[in-house]
């Protein structure tokens, strides 16, 4: 396994861990990243002939540490820092060989909580997390979020400066801060997933690579904090949604129109098992509930046999935890399906003030109006939804729905 693609996969997997450990050693984001890049370069020249080492993460960490020392050595005024660093590393290397990487997990956790610190703007949290933990390049992140690489690079530089200047700590939060801080981490991962799942701008509706990145990050957090049910809940949720990707390919496809045989049954089963583990902890939360709703859809053999009563109950619960307009809108659809279209319509109309500019509000209304055979109003609602969306795939889908009507 020495081909370029295999090496690439190893990097994606190990990069975040290597950087996390290095930041602890050198106490400097930029130096850690530069040294990790040096190690990757070294691996790229070496591994094709020697093969990938047995523990590539440890190899990369050791190499990166040496590269970090090289870099510091080159800067004369860092003499003091160098001896300090060498002292710390040699102390840690006592009686420890390269294949055992103790403390690596904690390093990664520290880094996650630093990147997702609430003192940073959310966009900065997302960018930093993808860069340092996801191993994505600035260009890749810029492409995924449709900003210029320059803007994104500035955002990252500013975030790193704030981490340093404001004294954002590199540590795992204490017990009392944990719920709030973990929530911030999960929000970042879910934002990354959502941008991949339902892109707000651009041409493609699903940007699958971002979904994969989010799922990979979620997996790391869950491995590091195995006892947190909401982490499991988020992972189950993302995997359940992602299992439907092939049935959603090529544009927006409504749940009722999806080819359910294209859903990845094995992935759904694995995600459902995760959800069961989460629920067994007896500490419900919004991610677990959303995952449960998605699991009910996944379990229905076809759209008609969906358990809408159960889904409606779950939405009631979600709304009481998270009273946001978007949750209320989704609940309205569940009400329409469980209790009757008119009841659902009443709930939707009551949400007009908060969601007037949200395209999915108008498209959900349009779909219900269609079922009530109020075609003219449905046409107006679809047109409003089209006017409000910036994603070309979504717009194309809504236009097709509109064209079918007129």
């Amino acid at each position, binding site marked *: 396994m020495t081909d370029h693609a295999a090496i690439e996969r190893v990097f994606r997997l190990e990069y975040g861990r290597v950087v996390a450990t290095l930041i602890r050693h050198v106490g400097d984001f930029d130096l850690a990243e530069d040294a990790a890049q040096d190690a990757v370069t070294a691996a790229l020249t070496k591994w094709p002939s020697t093969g990938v080492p047995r523990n590539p993460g440890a190899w990369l960490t050791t190499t990166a540490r040496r590269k970090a020392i090289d870099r510091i050595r080159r800067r004369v005024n860092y003499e003091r820092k160098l001896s300090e660093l060498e002292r710390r590393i040699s102390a840690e290397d006592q009686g420890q060989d390269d294949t055992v990487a103790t403390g690596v997990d904690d390093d990664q956790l520290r880094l996650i909580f630093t990147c997702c610190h609430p003192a940073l703007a959310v966009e900065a949290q997302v960018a930093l997390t993808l860069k340092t933990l996801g191993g994505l390049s600035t260009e890749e992140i810029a492409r995924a979020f449709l900003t210029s690489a320059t803007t994104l690079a500035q955002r990252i530089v500013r975030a790193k400066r704030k981490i340093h200047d*404001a004294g954002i700590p590199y540590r795992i939060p204490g017990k009392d801060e944990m719920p709030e801080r973990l929530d911030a981490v999960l929000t970042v991962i879910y934002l990354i997933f959502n941008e991949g799942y339902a892109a707000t701008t651009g041409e493609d509706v699903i940007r699958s690579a971002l979904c994969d990145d989010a799922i990979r990050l979620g997996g790391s957090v869950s491995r590091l904090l195995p006892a947190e049910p909401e982490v499991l809940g988020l992972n189950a949720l993302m995997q359940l949604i992602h299992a439907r990707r092939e049935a959603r390919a090529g544009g927006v496809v409504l749940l009722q129109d999806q080819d359910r045989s294209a859903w990845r049954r094995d992935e759904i089963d694995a995600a459902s098992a995760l959800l069961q583990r989460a629920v067994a902890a007896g500490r419900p939360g919004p991610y677990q509930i959303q995952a449960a709703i998605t699991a009910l859809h996944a379990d229905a053999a076809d759209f008609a046999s969906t358990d809408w009563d159960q889904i409606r109950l779950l939405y009631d619960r979600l709304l009481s935890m998270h009273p946001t307009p978007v949750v209320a809108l989704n609940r309205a659809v569940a009400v329409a399906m469980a209790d009757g279209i008119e009841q659902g319509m009443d709930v939707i109309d009551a949400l007009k003030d908060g969601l007037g500019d949200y395209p999915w509000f108008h498209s959900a209304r349009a779909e219900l109006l269609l079922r009530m055979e109020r075609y003219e109003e449905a046409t107006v609602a679809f047109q409003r939804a089209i006017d409000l969306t910036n994603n070309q795939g979504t717009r194309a889908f809504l236009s097709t729905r509109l064209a079918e009507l007129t």
Partner: protein
Amino acid sequence: MHEEYFKFTERITARGINLGGEALAGVETATTVQVRDGRTLTTDGPFAETKEILGGFYLIEAADLDAAVAVAAEIPGSWSGSVEVRPLWDWQNGKMAE
């Protein structure tokens, strides 16, 4: 409220992290100074853009931002209004103080 502030000040002093601080008189006493083209413009009132009013400040010692935030959360003003946390500028080294 005064009582709460008194207790807070006592607590941080006991922990040895109270480096100073002052309360400011109300904004009706504020005067804004701007020098433009060598001329000093003095106007009454706080900065025109000011939406929130600085009532005073504490200078505290904290290991990192989380520690500083924990102390800020003890300031009674943060229970109804807000408290802004900022590091001190280190004049000697031209960067933020460690």
